[in-house]
């Protein structure tokens, strides 16, 4: 049986916390960009202008068909080269964090856009009619009447997707970026205490995600009874 030795964790806590900040940074940035871009995609998808709607459908279906790991690899291996040759960025500058945020944001936008599209479609059609009858333009009706109602109902789903995204940030491991999981792995590898560090990392993720999903569920129940 394995003999546990947890002693390398206390000293490593500052380093692990630095990693956690990277994980949270990627999560929050990607959620914000993902929701903005996802909203635009959803509006394009529902718009009467065919090419826009086709573009959005193609984008969403493509990103939903391929694994996140693939997208991240694309961003780490290929996009920096592309940027270097296009914009003459100095070779070898560390763009891993911004690549990761961009990769996550573009990927998650596809999932957010589906949630948002369903949310918009769940607002009764009569609301759009009523807004138009008051003389609002399509844009005004969307912005002032439909979207506020849609978002209110979508908040729990958007947050749940955020929790999934937080879990998925661990995949930046493929770029050797030291997010929380990467940091834990590095410490474990260095001290020969991989078993302890991996168990610790799993426990931390569990506590955070479990607590967050409880809070979302609580909010969801409040929304239902309101």
């Amino acid at each position: 049986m394995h003999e546990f030795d947890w002693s390398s964790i206390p000293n490593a806590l500052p380093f692990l916390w630095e990693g956690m900040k990277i994980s949270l940074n990627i999560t929050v940035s990607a959620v914000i960009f993902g929701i903005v871009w996802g909203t635009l995609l959803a509006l394009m998808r529902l718009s009467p202008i065919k090419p826009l709607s086709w573009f959005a459908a193609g984008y969403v279906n493509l990103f939903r068909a391929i694994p996140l790991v693939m997208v991240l690899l694309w961003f780490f291996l290929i996009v920096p080269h592309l940027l270097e040759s296009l914009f003459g960025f100095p070779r070898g500058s560390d763009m891993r964090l911004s690549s990761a945020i961009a990769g996550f944001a573009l990927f998650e936008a596809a999932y957010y856009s589906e949630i948002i599209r369903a949310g918009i479609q769940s607002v009764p059609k009569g609301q759009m009619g009523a807004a138009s009858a008051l003389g609002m333009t399509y844009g005004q009706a969307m912005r002032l009447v439909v979207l506020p109602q849609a978002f209110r109902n979508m908040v729990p789903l958007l947050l749940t997707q955020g929790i999934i995204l937080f879990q998925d940030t661990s995949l930046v491991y493929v770029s050797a970026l030291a997010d929380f999981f990467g940091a834990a792995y590095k410490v474990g590898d260095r001290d020969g205490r991989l078993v302890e560090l991996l168990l610790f990392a799993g426990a931390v993720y569990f506590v955070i995600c479990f607590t967050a999903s409880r809070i979302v569920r609580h909010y969801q129940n409040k929304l239902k009874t309101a």
Partner: protein
Amino acid sequence: MGYNWNWGIFLQPTATGDDTYLGWMFYGFKMTIALSLSAWLIALALGAVVGVLRTVPNKWLSGLATAYVEIFRNIPLLVQLFLWYFVMPELLPEALGNAFKQTNPIMQQFVASMVCLALFTSARVAEQVRSGINSLPPGQKNAGLAMGFTLPQTYRYVMLPMAVRLIVPPLTSEFLNIFKNSAVCSTIGLLELAAQGRQLVDYTAQPYESFIAVTIAYLLINVVVMSGMRWVEEHVRVPGYLGGK
């Protein structure tokens, strides 16, 4: 940009000389399929059991099933994979752990990946099964019991056949997810599709061809799974019920 497209690269022999690059891709493709399908079968069976347990009146059983689902849903897949691959063999009784470590490394990677994907997915399948059962009209259970069925018989003959039909669409998306999630297993060195794509980037100077080929392979899997599940959906459709014939 000065990039030299060269689709002929796939037919060239690999740097190690024993295969073509297309052969590598095909190996990865087969690995992805074998891994995902075997994990999916286990996930379906486990998920069905856990999902049913979440709905039974016995507090202990349903509590246990809830704990199972929460654990597998709230730890990232990558962390779970590392736990299965690096940690589990250390925690097993020594003989068993050593036996695992002495098997063929590809076998080790495959088994850890399969168990990981299967359990991760089974928690999600369980949630679908539970919501399928809960979405049945409550009177159906009573009707089964009133006929003299025992509770297990009521599940077997009355509730599950309908619940399973209701959850075919969400199961389709879980089925697609397991193929996508299998790419995470490249991190422990399993040479599945995404890993082979990455190898190609390392060995050739043709990253775009490689990524496009891998992407097309995943799209292909997607199309096949979706049409397969659509076929299933049409064949289990109940006449006169929810869009039935």
